[in-house]
């Protein structure tokens, strides 16, 4: 990751585009008109922020439930001396979207998505077999809020 620091226009782009992106034929031109800049500048800035690691991605966030897919939160209790090796084993699976170390006996928390619930269960079984550790799933029963927009 570079030490590229976002300037005021970068921050304005981040704050505007976490909420959505115009679905029009010239979307970057429309964003530019909000921010008093031009289309090429918006494209260049988003590209630079992706390269610098400030943005994890620029694209869709799917609703896996509506797509008939399945998503789960899972946790493991991993011995400290195996933590890095186990995280590599878990993250090697394409279905794993993110993975965090947290300060609890259940110290590895990851989210996985697949096309079906049985696909998730198969993934969890594979991770248990590869690591020799139990994996606990915490399936979502209800969703109250999914904002996750942060001020840049």
């Amino acid at each position, binding site marked *: 990751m570079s030490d590229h620091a976002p300037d005021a226009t970068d921050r304005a*782009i981040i704050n505007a*585009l976490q909420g959505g*992106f115009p*679905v*029009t*034929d*010239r979307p*970057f*031109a429309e964003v530019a008109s909000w921010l008093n800049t031009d289309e090429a500048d918006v*494209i260049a800035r*988003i*590209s630079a922020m992706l390269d610098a690691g*400030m*943005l*994890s*991605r*620029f*694209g*869709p*966030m*799917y*609703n896996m439930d*509506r*797509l*008939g897919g*399945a998503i789960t*939160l899972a946790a493991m209790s991993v011995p400290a001396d195996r933590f890095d090796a186990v*995280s590599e084993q*878990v*993250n090697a699976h*394409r279905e794993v*979207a*993110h*993975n*965090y*170390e*947290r*300060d*609890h006996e*259940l110290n590895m*928390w990851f989210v996985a*998505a697949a*096309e*079906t619930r*049985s*696909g998730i*269960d198969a993934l969890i079984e594979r991770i248990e077999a590869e690591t020799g550790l139990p994996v*606990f*799933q*915490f*399936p*979502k*029963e*209800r*969703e*109250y*809020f*999914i904002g996750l927009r*942060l001020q*840049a």
Partner: protein
Amino acid sequence: MRARRDSGFRGTECDQRDVALLAAIEDGLPLCARPFAQIGEAARMDEGEVLARLRRMCAARVIRRLGLVLQHRALGYRANAMVVWDVPDADIDDVAQKIVAHDFVTLCYCRERRAPDWPYNLYCMIHGRERRLVECQIAAVKRAAGLDQYPSRTLFSSRRFKQRGARFSAPAPIPMAAR
């Protein structure tokens, strides 16, 4: 397997061309002047069809949103707390509504209780720049939602190993015979 609360819309709300379009954009939108025209080339449809299908899927909440996702640690959001409570099922909807009224709460879910020594069913995430500020925010949520009476844990994240969006076109599960 338990019955899913949200039954899938597969085969009804999304047709095969929608699925092809979703697969074409899952790794990201092209950074060019006419990104939806370029997507159309990959998905074998014209720009107008791409726009119409994406608008419909956004309105139907199949796509929660298009746009950018922060690598929040790079922007200084290093204090990422997952707060969990054990709330009686009868109270959980009311309590959750009080939690999500706080604008610094980024996610809130009810989840099944599945692990030993883990009685918690209500989950809330707060992403902040300062751990001390996040601790104050958690205390404020607890007071406002009357949550002090329920067992609770706060799990800050110490390291992040992977962050990207959920993929749509995950590979097929390994057949039972192969495992």
